[in-house]
């Protein structure tokens, strides 16, 4: 005998769900029968490719189809009884809202519907194939852990949860993108993060109305306050331990489904010059390396400009031995130093950009043609002097010492206005350029957090990196509620 109660028929339910998910989707519906005597009609629905089929077969269909002997005639709450007794999947619950049911199907869950019921059993069968956890190729640390984030959001969250077992580690979920409906999870440590800042960020996220968010950088552009600034305003990482330490400073991590790149807010300028390795190595080494990076910034921005100034306006400052060889090298070259330096810089930029996108096999040709042939030919063709070529080369090489690629590109772009300024105003142009860069950096803010500012207490982790046990306070520039990172456990202050 078939139990009948014409409130929500099985077919209606299936059709409703199909309409909500979208009729053009590859939705799989499987009808079956539960029980022997007074049996129930039932169906499961899942999206092909997103759910794990072996789990469905083994833990849902197998027990329900083959092992049910109960009589459901007078039973109430049949759904709960069924999932409690027969479904061997841990994350299972009953849902009434059909819209949420549709959302869950899109995220790889399986829905079990029993005949004449308006309630749906949602079973977590999320699966599908993802990239395995590997070491991020773009961020390498010799001594750090070898794991990196992947495209799967749950895996990424779990990686962070595994590292931070604090009960205050909070996650909040947003769904962004009208069409892509991408999951965004923000993570923070509840009693460290500044509540006002958090609210600001959340408000800002809620205003986003876009059809799809493909990558964290898209989100970054939706949120940032200075869209036309040359400097990157949000830093991120593929390494969980980096994100972990940023969370500990009171920052908020943005994990977006489908991208292994996790960004943190707020970001300040100096972070772009810090790497994981800095914290793992020796204090003195780190100091020297950081100084080297700062020197690299200076070299990239001002070396070509200073060269032009000295050659064009202030020859009297060059010692006599140097000037002799400079004149020798420049003999017969008709292009002005400015033009040849500019040309060389642009050629090198072309090679860099080309090398970045090329497959590595073609890259070799590029380096041969670029490095050897063009360099040598440019000299012999009397287009540039060897000293100009040297300056352009140094400036490019120095830019590679800046650890973060986007920042490296920004810094390199500053060369051009500097070159023009110095060609026009000499050393005054360089001064004006530098002062403007500093002033501009100082004027930038992200949601009220200054982008570039020095505070005395933060100096422990700016140019130098103090021993870990001395960094008792969290950075002052990052808003937070709990300034104390650790106690003075080595008792240095009382000594």
């Amino acid at each position, binding site marked *: 005998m078939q139990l009948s109660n014409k409130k929500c028929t099985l077919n209606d339910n299936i059709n409703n769900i199909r309409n909500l998910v979208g009729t053009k989707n590859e939705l799989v519906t499987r009808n079956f029968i539960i029980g022997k005597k007074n049996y129930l009609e039932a169906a499961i629905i899942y999206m092909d490719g997103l759910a794990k089929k072996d789990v469905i077969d083994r833990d849902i269909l197998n027990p329900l189809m083959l092992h049910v002997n109960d009589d459901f005639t007078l039973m109430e709450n049949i759904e709960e009884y069924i999932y409690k007794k027969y479904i061997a999947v841990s994350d299972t619950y009953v849902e009434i809202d059909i819209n949420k049911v549709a959302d869950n199907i899109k995220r790889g869950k399986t829905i079990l519907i029993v005949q004449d019921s308006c309630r749906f059993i949602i079973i977590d069968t999320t699966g599908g194939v993802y990239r395995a956890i590997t070491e991020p190729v773009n961020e390498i640390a010799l001594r750090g852990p070898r794991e990196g984030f992947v495209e799967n959001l749950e895996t990424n969250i779990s990686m962070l949860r595994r590292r931070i077992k604090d009960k205050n580690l909070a996650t909040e979920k947003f769904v962004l993108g009208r069409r892509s409906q991408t999951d965004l999870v923000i993570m923070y440590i509840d009693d460290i993060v500044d509540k006002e800042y958090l609210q600001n960020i959340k408000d800002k996220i809620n205003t986003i109305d876009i059809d799809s968010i493909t990558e964290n950088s898209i989100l970054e552009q939706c949120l940032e306050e200075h869209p036309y600034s040359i400097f990157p305003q949000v830093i991120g990482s593929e390494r969980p331990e980096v994100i972990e330490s940023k969370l500990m400073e009171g920052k908020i991590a943005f994990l977006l489904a489908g991208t292994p790149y996790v960004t943190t807010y707020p970001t300040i300028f100096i972070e772009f010059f810090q790497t994981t390795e800095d914290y793992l190595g020796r204090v003195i080494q780190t100091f020297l390396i950081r100084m080297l990076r700062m020197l690299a910034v200076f070299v990239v921005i001002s070396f070509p400009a200073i060269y032009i100034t000295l050659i064009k306006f202030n020859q009297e400052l060059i010692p006599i031995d140097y000037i002799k060889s400079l004149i020798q090298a420049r003999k017969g070259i008709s292009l002005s130093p400015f033009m040849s330096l500019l040309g060389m810089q642009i050629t090198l930029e072309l090679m860099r950009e080309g090398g970045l996108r090329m497959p590595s096999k073609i890259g070799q040709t590029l380096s041969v043609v670029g490095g050897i042939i063009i360099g040598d030919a440019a000299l012999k063709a009397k287009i540039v002097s060897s000293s100009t070529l040297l300056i352009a080369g140094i400036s490019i090489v120095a830019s590679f010492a800046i650890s973060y690629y986007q920042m490296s590109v920004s810094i390199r772009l500053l060369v051009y206005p500097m070159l023009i300024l110095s060609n026009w105003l000499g050393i005054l142009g360089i001064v004006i350029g530098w002062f403007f860069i500093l002033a501009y950096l100082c004027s930038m803010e992200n949601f009220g957090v200054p982008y570039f500012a*020095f505070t005395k207490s933060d100096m422990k982790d700016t140019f130098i990196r103090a021993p870990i046990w001395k960094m008792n306070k969290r950075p002052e520039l990052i808003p937070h509620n709990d300034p104390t990172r650790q106690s003075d456990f080595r008792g240095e202050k009382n000594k």
Partner: protein
Amino acid sequence: MTLHGKAILEVRKINRAKDNLLTTNQFTFTLKSIMVGIATLSIPNTVIKVSKQDGWISILLGALYPLYLVIIANFMSKNFPKDNILVLSKKCFGNFIGSILNFIFISFFLFSLTLEFSGYSNVFRVYGVSFLKNYQVLLTALIPISFVAYKGIKTLGRLNEVGFYLTIALIVFPIGILAYGSFYNLMPVFGSGLNNVVKASKQAVVAYSGMEIIFLIYPFIQDRKKLLKCGLLNTSIVTFIYVWVTIGTIYYLGVETSQKYLWPVITLADSIQIPVINSFRYIFITLFSLVEFKCISTFYFAVSYGLNQSIKKVSAKIFTILLYPIIIIITMLYGNITNTNYYAEKLVPIYVIFNLTYVSIIAISIYLKRGVNYRKA
């Protein structure tokens, strides 16, 4: 805490974040920035004319002027933490006279700004860019400076702090001269007579002008209790720099030779020799440009902010733009360095006397009428 109390606290916190406030360090270095300007390069000459090898003692004495201003500012800040001197002056002298005095007070900043700027252009064209005309230097250099003034106090505060750390090397550079000079140049101490030392200290006061900005910006400090500390710290930093360069110059050049130079302090850079460049003065003056730019920016901010406080209808940003051509024109009028110095020697002492009386009268009237008229007004 009651729910209501919590709500008030929340609101306050939000307001605090939005306010334009300076940290103690930023405040101190803003004061330092405005004081240390072009005068630093020639300060030994202003004092050794009268007090010879004891010039540095005169400079120590001259520090009494900023010290006095700090104490007065601290007193005002305690009584009226939210009102700057322009508001207090109107309360004290009435609207009309108050406004006139305010304008004179603000005009002092404009005057100092143009003096600084003219001096900078002159010195930089001698040591750095001899191929540029005066107007070329002025027109271009003022662009980034006005950008800072345009962006307001927060940017200025941060820049001054960052700038201090970046140019700290300038104070350290002249250590090299210790190998070349002679201590006999500084002997005998008090040899020029106490009278001359005091007389020269009047000249030294000129170099300390700029501290008056504290009356405009003390409402911006985050922690009001530290105002006095900031002021004292700043005064000691500036005094240290001045005394150090004066002693250095006398030690290195001697009293006679020093006066032959327009900017004797630059010669201290000679002590450093690096093989890739012939003259270290060039690098010194380049780095010093950053100090100078900070100084002019701070003056610029003081003028545009002061005008904005007097005429509230026009925003400080618009004043910044309007002031740009005015500053260029006034600066062009000074002409060469001798003329600039001439105007400085004539006008700055008058301004200093005006500032002293203006500030003192307001302070005294606050003291006398404490809590009676002011609070109501």
